[in-house]
């Protein structure tokens, strides 16, 4: 069974709209991270949110964490075509950076 899992396989929005990607996980964690992976590149970290935090922002990105329901969301406002990518949540249960990734949500932002 997946230890971390995004809830949508793919999302499509138009430029300027907002979008939210959701993630659920199954174990107790020390932190949850959101990554973005563009075609042909490795994943790049967007936000790290620790288990004692409820919300974290980074520019147009906002991540939330609900440890009681073991879920997280990543919202992107004012989307741009360059936000097109696969978005992953990754959990760290050990605290030693051994990451467990979900399968990812494909986000397509069209003009």
């Amino acid at each position: 069974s997946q230890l971390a899992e995004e809830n949508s396989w793919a999302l499509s929005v138009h430029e300027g709209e907002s979008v939210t990607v959701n993630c659920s996980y199954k174990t107790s964690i020390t932190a949850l991270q959101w990554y973005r992976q563009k075609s042909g590149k490795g994943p790049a970290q967007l936000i790290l949110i620790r288990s004692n935090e409820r919300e974290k922002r980074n520019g147009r990105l906002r991540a939330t964490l609900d440890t009681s329901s073991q879920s997280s969301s990543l919202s992107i406002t004012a989307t741009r075509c360059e936000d097109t990518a696969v978005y992953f949540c990754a959990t760290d249960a050990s605290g030693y950076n051994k990451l467990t990734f979900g399968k990812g949500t494909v986000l397509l932002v069209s003009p």
Partner: protein
Amino acid sequence: GPKVLQIPSHQIIDMGQMVTLNCDPVSNHLYFYWYKQILGQQMEFLVNFYNGKVMEKSKLFKDQFSVERPDGSYFTLKIQPTALEDSAVYFCASSFLDNQDTQYFGPGTRLLVL
């Protein structure tokens, strides 16, 4: 931002051969990682490495796998001998600290075992 390089970008080899995947981590980083991603599946942790030693490895890190970073050069993943199921994209990552620190990933090496 900081960049991790991986060489080669693609590798095709025959089953049973040895392959070495090379990673050039961020220069001041101390912790190094390998992840494996099979097409259509999620990325999975293989191993992390610090101060010349394997700190933790997953069940995917078979006996045929080994890692090293001789004299601060490339951080390498060696597979000997290779098997068909080793076909995947292998991502290297590095971080300065281990505890919840940002991992910087390379672009991956696409390995195809025939």
